């Protein structure tokens, strides 16, 4: 099963860079997940101001430039997980949050192909 994991955190926490220790722990976890073949892809939010919304309503497409300061949570990063069960996805997510700290991970199962 494949899951998309979106990590969201408060703008305050997002603004504070992680410590070296936290970075090292995250590096170890990512290595372990890659070794297990679980981590298909992952990335953290780039340190730029580029974020935007593209919205379609009827025939109208509108672009709104970010950053979206009104948000209570901002996206910190994402991962695509390839696991055998929902419980396994939860388990890895717990391990991720142990490293990442306070925040929310939204896990959604995705299918591949049409």
């Amino acid at each position, binding site marked *: 099963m494949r899951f998309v994991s979106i990590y969201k955190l408060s703008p305050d926490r997002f603004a504070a860079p992680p410590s070296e220790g936290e970075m090292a722990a995250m590096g170890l976890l990512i290595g372990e997940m*890659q*070794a*297990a*073949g679980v981590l*298909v892809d992952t990335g953290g939010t780039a340190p730029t101001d580029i974020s935007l919304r593209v919205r379609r309503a009827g025939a109208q497409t509108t672009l709104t430039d970010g950053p979206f300061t009104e948000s209570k949570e901002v996206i910190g990063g994402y991962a*695509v997980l390839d696991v*055998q*069960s929902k*419980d*396994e996805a*939860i*388990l*890895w997510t*717990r*391990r991720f949050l*142990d490293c990442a700290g306070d925040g929310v991970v939204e896990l959604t199962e995705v299918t*591949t*192909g*049409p």
Partner: protein
Amino acid sequence: MSTVETQRTLDAVWRIESPKLIAGLSRIVRDVGVAEELVQDAFVSALVQWPESGIPRNPGAWLMAVAKRRAIDRFRREDVVELKHQEIAREIQLHETGEPDVDALDDDIGDDLLRLIFIACHPVLSTEARIALTLRLLGGLSTSDIARAFLVAEPVVAQRIVRAKRTLSEAHIPFEVPNASERAARLSSVLGVLYLIFNEGYAASAGDDVLRPALCEDALWLGRVLAQLVPDDSEVHALVALMEIQASRSTARVNASGEPILLLDQDRGRWDQLLIRRGLAALERAEALGGALGPYAFQAAIAACHARAHTAEQTDWTRIAALYDALAQVLPSPVVQLNRAVAVGMAYGAAAGLELVDALRSEPSLKAYHLLSSVRGDLLEKLSRFGEAQTEFEHAAELAHNVRDRTLMRERAARCAHR
């Protein structure tokens, strides 16, 4: 947290953590069977304690700590003199206090995992035993899972595993990574086992028990782990590449009623592009290591040719024919020769392919192989030699093992009869 929830979490933890735990403990107790029991005991403790205490922050470390305590208890309980009578006791690493050196566990779990893979695929074991033990100890599958996946009775698998563990301990198979002189042969046994597991899953059609296709995932997962542990071996990466690319077609290769769709007729839009990317990357790693390419590298390279072609017409048959040529050098087998003939037929025309197929007709091992007749029929049909093609398709229908193939061959024979 309820016991049911704990059990579900533990099932997931088992899959992720048990191979590492069994591997680490095997080094200390020098017996994979004993190590597995210790780890199982630790999971039983977790099932009792976690509903109360919640899931520990690091489940693997928690379980390892419990398993270590169990190992010490076991040594205290069992009379050391008694233990010395047992052959395994010779190799146990003991402190001067007579207790096992459990701290050695934290040294290098990667090496232990590799040792466990090698011992599970040891040539002293039968192929069936290697497969069962690998799935049990490294894939985290239960005996009943393995039995269902291989369509055999559970007691048969249980027996196989018990006997395999006994064989390993009676033969005093050391828990170690083989030395340089043995390494290539032993690694080839490991790769063989993984590919057999993969093919067992791949051969299952969509209508089969879901556990059978899951074998593909298990084999892929073990292959990826192995590639991290043995990053310098070209064939390991090549096998991973081959499995990734084959797995990318798993949804496209059967239709809604479970009938197989031939590679060239598949809807390539349904191929899993992520697996293809992973496969091509693994193949690149295999090729970048240099040295002579092995059988998996050529097979992966052939699979990659198909994966890179956006339509069947874009397939680079010239390259595939050359790759089969190279494969036949390192893996001389009539089936490879037959595939080579198909590729040559596609690249250089049916007459060239037919010439190679005709050379295989005297091959005893292909006498009862329906694909030889089927391929020959196909080439004859392309050359408008319909009468001979019809005879070949009819012969193929007689030899075919399943109804689907038989029907297909009869249909093709009938079509030739009307030309």
